[in-house]
């Protein structure tokens, strides 16, 4: 058994792994290094309840600081690892020290993809934000003043959640999306137009098929004043008090690639979370793993994946082999409406809806070869659990019965 496990990145996956090792009875040394000032915390509320002021800071922490010490997990916040020396099996934090490992786990997550516009490179703008960390939210909060105009670039889940919180906080919101519809990479048109509708009802404005052409800055070049864009070639200028960029994530893979490990849309690992170096593992948002569900490789960005991947890595480190059979799932919350998504709908052939779109309680099932490969469940939590089972069982279903609310979902997999 390894003597000393070093985990780089104290986020959802890293924190879960440290705890998981102790739960499994690991007796060696665990060193958890994170570059943020906080112990591992939940990111989902950052764009939901925490931004709205309904979830307190202490409730974001996955475990109180005291728990790590009590279970003999050495946690060092504010410690950024700069390099890995594979030959001496050491990592070097910024302070120049060297920390030895027997097994190293990279749980470095990712960072918000920056807006790339000519002339903006390297410019730090006081009212241009993205949301990945607590400090990002704290920086943005000051601009959350009723009446302010927030321009959101990117119509993914994070952008939409922030839009919901912002209008509920009295801001005016315009959301710009490059694709012709919202959430186009992760959901079908039925759900996209539903989401657009619930936001429009609350006063969010949209510019779809929208190309951002530039940001207009103040004279000191410290603040954004306006955003210039074009929708279907028609130019427009929007005034902005603050701008949020939510255009995706770049996995933090630089440490791995500098150490000569394979990186391809994430740090490449096998089904046991191991890289090609048997002493180095990678988990969570930063890792690209084989998926039993898709049969190919995927990099997922979700809490359930971070937890599951940490479980796989803990087993590996305990000398067991327990690959994951988990089905990807994700949730979102907009205006108190619960959205739960399971599976990946890419490549679906048919979408069957069940329930009432009108009453904001419906599910959309994505079918391929008569099997449910994914589902979006809106305001019907009981169906979510049943949908999860349909996706994992891969059973053939009858589309007509699936769409009929009178037929219990549990009885549909024949």
């Amino acid at each position, binding site marked *: 058994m390894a003597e000393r496990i070093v985990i780089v990145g104290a986020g959802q996956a890293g924190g879960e792994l440290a705890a998981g090792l102790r*739960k499994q009875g690991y007796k060696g040394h665990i060193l958890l290094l994170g570059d943020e000032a906080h112990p591992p915390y939940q990111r989902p509320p950052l764009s939901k309840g925490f931004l709205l002021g309904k979830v307190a800071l202490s409730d974001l922490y996955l475990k109180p600081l005291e728990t790590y010490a009590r279970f003999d997990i050495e946690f060092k916040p504010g410690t950024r690892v700069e390099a890995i020396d594979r030959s001496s099996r050491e990592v070097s934090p910024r302070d120049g020290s060297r920390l030895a490992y027997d097994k190293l786990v990279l749980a470095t997550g990712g960072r918000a993809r920056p807006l790339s516009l000519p002339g903006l490179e390297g410019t730090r703008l006081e009212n241009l934000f993205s949301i990945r960390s607590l400090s990002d939210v704290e920086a943005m909060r000051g601009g959350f003043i009723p009446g302010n105009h927030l321009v959101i670039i990117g119509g993914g889940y994070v952008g939409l959640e922030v839009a919901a919180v912002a209008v509920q906080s009295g801001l005016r919101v315009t959301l710009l999306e490059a694709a012709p519809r919202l959430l186009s990479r992760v959901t079908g048109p039925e759900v996209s137009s539903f989401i657009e509708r619930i936001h429009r009802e609350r006063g969010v404005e949209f510019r779809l098929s929208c190309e951002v052409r530039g940001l207009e800055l103040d004279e000191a070049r410290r603040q954004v004043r306006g955003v210039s864009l074009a929708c279907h070639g028609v130019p427009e200028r929007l005034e902005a008090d603050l701008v949020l960029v939510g255009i995706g994530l770049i996995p933090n893979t630089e440490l791995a690639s500098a150490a000569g490990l394979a990186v391809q849309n994430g740090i490449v690992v096998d089904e046991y979370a191991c890289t090609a170096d048997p002493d180095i593992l990678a988990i969570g948002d930063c890792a690209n793993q084989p998926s039993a569900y898709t049969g190919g490789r995927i990099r997922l960005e979700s809490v359930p994946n971070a937890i599951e991947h940490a479980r796989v890595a803990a087993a590996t480190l305990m000398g067991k082999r327990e690959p994951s059979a988990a089905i990807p799932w994700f949730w979102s*919350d907009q205006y108190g409406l619960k959205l739960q998504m399971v599976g990946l709908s890419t490549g679906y052939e048919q979408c069957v809806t069940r329930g009432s779109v009108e009453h904001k309680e419906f599910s959309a099932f994505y079918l391929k070869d008569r099997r449910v490969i994914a589902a979006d469940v809106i305001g019907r939590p009981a169906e979510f659990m049943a949908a999860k089972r349909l996706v994992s069982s891969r059973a053939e279903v009858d589309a007509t019965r699936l769409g009929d609310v009178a037929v219990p979902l549990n009885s549909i997999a024949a």
Partner: protein
Amino acid sequence: MTKIKFIEADGKEHEVEAQEGQSVMQAALNNLVPGIVAECGGFASCATCHGYVDEAWRTKIPPPDAAEEAMIECAFHVQPNSRLTCQIKVTPALDGMVVRLPVSQTNE
């Protein structure tokens, strides 16, 4: 301090000190009790914090709301005394409560 005892499916017991106001799920996480996964972080969206509340305490906690009931309905290994532990707030009345954990939070 309120004491809560979690019993894993294999019989292993974990007695923990829970703080008033936190959820029973959080008390389990803070004390590294195996068997509570809590993927959604306590928002009644995942049913991976599922536990069975012993009879004597069932009447001391408010009944599940509609959202919890809906999630429980289709969770794994459901029994009549199944609850989502993230939806139960710790109060002094719960001192000594026993929560048994299912064989699995994520599988049949």
